[in-house]
């Protein structure tokens, strides 16, 4: 569950750090000085328990227990997790110091949210419903953490998309094991010392809900972002051939990738590979709509439509993406022909369309970078808010 040093990009590290500072500020505010020994002892207990290896099928995994931590500690889970990870980074070189912020956020946000979800149910009754909620909290916290870890990796570069998918899948059995364990641990606590759960562990449900509402969209944004690294296929008809070019949203060419061409009836009419420049060409057998599918591996797949209306004297009509309808007829160009104004415009159009398309794609990429900045920006704002809260808290103390 830890991300090591040197992997994540600077904006992700900064956003994670800022988010963690905010979480720590809230967590420390929720904690009374009187509670310090208790929280510290629980932190130590969690740290010890997280070193336990539990067998899962043929292999084993160490416990995370952030769902339970959220149920028992609420917002104070933030400092508890932070300290646990700090110890691990300094003592065992697990995780790291630059990634301390991101790693804390990835584990603590699910803890807080899942804790807020399960606690009302546990406080009101201890029957089946409460246990179901506990299972959801225990397993959900792991799944959510895995998604956030995957998201932080994917946001740091599209190269990590495959790694992050792998990490997500690897956490599914762990989530199930933690769900089962959470139910058993909580029912143990309910039987032996119910006041731990039912007692006066601050009922700040309203506040929690509010913040969860703010955090969840950011999470969803990050998740959706993880899927946004796609391969693009751009195709057009130049009068004789269908030309296509595949590239990844980072700008790298999709070379040696399989490309399939279907006609309007869905029948495969051609298949081939892109060359070293990510390009591909093919001579269409007749008029009609063609659908090109590029398979660039690892689930990267892109499609484009090209219509061939007048074979031989063809018309260029790129319809991939948002390009406007270009259905201008172009007269045949044989020998020297004097061009009229409109004819010239049409030729220009047909030649410029690919470039237009490129520009549109570029603009799209610009948006993508922008989104990343927005996430980082939100992180900065959160950090500033945390700082402000911290300062007001200090003032109040004096």
């Amino acid at each position, binding site marked *: 569950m830890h991300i090591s040093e040197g992997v994540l990009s600077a904006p992700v590290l900064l956003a994670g750090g800022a988010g963690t500072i905010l979480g720590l500020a809230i967590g420390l505010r929720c904690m009374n000085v009187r509670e310090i020994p208790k929280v510290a002892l629980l932190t130590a207990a969690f740290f010890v*328990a997280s070193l336990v290896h539990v067998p899962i099928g043929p292999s084993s995994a160490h416990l995370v227990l952030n769902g339970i931590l959220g149920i028992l500690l609420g917002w104070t889970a933030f400092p508890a997790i932070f*300290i646990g990870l700090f110890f691990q980074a300094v003592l065992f070189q697990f995780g790291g110091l630059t990634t301390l912020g991101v790693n804390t956020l990835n584990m603590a946000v699910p803890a807080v949210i899942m804790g807020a979800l399960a606690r009302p149910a546990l406080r009101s009754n201890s029957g089946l419903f409460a246990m179901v909620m506990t299972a959801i909290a225990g397993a959900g916290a792991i799944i959510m953490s895995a998604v956030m870890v995957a998201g932080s990796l994917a946001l740091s570069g599209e*190269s990590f998309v495959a790694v992050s998918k792998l990490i997500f899948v690897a956490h599914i059995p762990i989530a199930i094991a933690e769900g089962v*364990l959470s139910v*058993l641990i909580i029912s143990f606590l309910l039987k032996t010392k119910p006041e731990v759960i039912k007692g006066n562990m601050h009922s700040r449900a309203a506040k929690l809900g509010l913040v969860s509402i703010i955090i969840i969209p950011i999470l969803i944004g990050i998740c959706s972002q993880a899927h946004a690294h796609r391969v693009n296929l751009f195709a057009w008809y130049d009068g004789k051939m269908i030309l296509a070019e595949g590239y990844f949203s980072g700008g790298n060419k999709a070379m040696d990738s399989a490309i399939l061409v279907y006609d309007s009836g869905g029948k495969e009419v051609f298949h081939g590979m892109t060359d070293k420049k990510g390009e591909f060409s093919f001579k269409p057998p007749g008029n009609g709509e063609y659908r090109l599918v590029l398979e660039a591996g690892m689930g990267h797949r892109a499609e484009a439509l090209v219509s061939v209306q007048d074979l031989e004297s063809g018309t260029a009509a790129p319809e991939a993406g948002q390009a406007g309808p270009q259905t201008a007829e172009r007269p045949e160009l044989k020998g020297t022909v004097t061009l009229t104004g409109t004819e010239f415009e049409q030729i220009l159009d047909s030649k410029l369309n690919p470039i237009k398309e490129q520009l549109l794609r570029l603009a799209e990429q610009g948006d993508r970078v922008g989104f990343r900045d927005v996430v980082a920006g939100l992180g900065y704002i959160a950090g500033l808010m945390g700082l402000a809260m911290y300062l007001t808290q200090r003032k109040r103390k004096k």
Partner: protein
Amino acid sequence: MTCERFASGKSILHSADPRVKILLAGGYAVVTVGLGSLEGQVLALSGSLLLVMAARLSLKEVFHRLLVVNLFILMLWFILPWTTPGTGVTHFGPIMITAEGLDLALSISLKCNAIILANLALLSTSTIFSLAHALAHFRVPTKMVQLIFFSWRYFHVIDSEFHRMKQAIKVRGFEPGSNLHTYRTYAYLIGTLFIKSLERGERVYKAMLCRGFDGTFWLLSHFRLHQRDIYLAGFTSAYLFLIIGVEWINPCR
């Protein structure tokens, strides 16, 4: 459990002021994380190797620590070269190995090891207590510092308690497996540990009250900046500026 393995020693880094070491470790990490050029990364790694030498850590132990981290990096070496789009170098069947992927994996390996070695030399040569103490001097909220102090103080108590409980179930014939009996046993064990910890926490607080605790934590300041701390800070930051300079001349690949 012997955790603070590197904290005892007599090197210049062991005796240095923890405040200086925290600042240097932070600076080293920030500069290294941002490096894009191979030259800069290699310099960062050699620099942290020098620090480890200066700390006179047992190289065998250091290597052992690095091994664990590098397992994760090894996984990246198996995945990144063929999932990173870019110019192909060679291919195995349908799998294309790209230069960009290899570069990325190399860069991560260098940076990760550089930061970890620097942290080993700068931070792991202090005890957790003195690090927490230094944090207090950096105006980290007292509550946070106290949490770190207490967690570390009782970590050992709880760890040995847990160890004894594990031995007690072992002599009663317990053997872990993938079954509900194992899960229930672990859950009870962990639950018991939580309750014991909570109750110990309450007792600790009561004992503190008996000694006149009123919410104030007194900090007995005893750090003093020595000449050698200034040399250490000077050399290390000069080296960091050298790395930044090299990075500036060799822009990102």
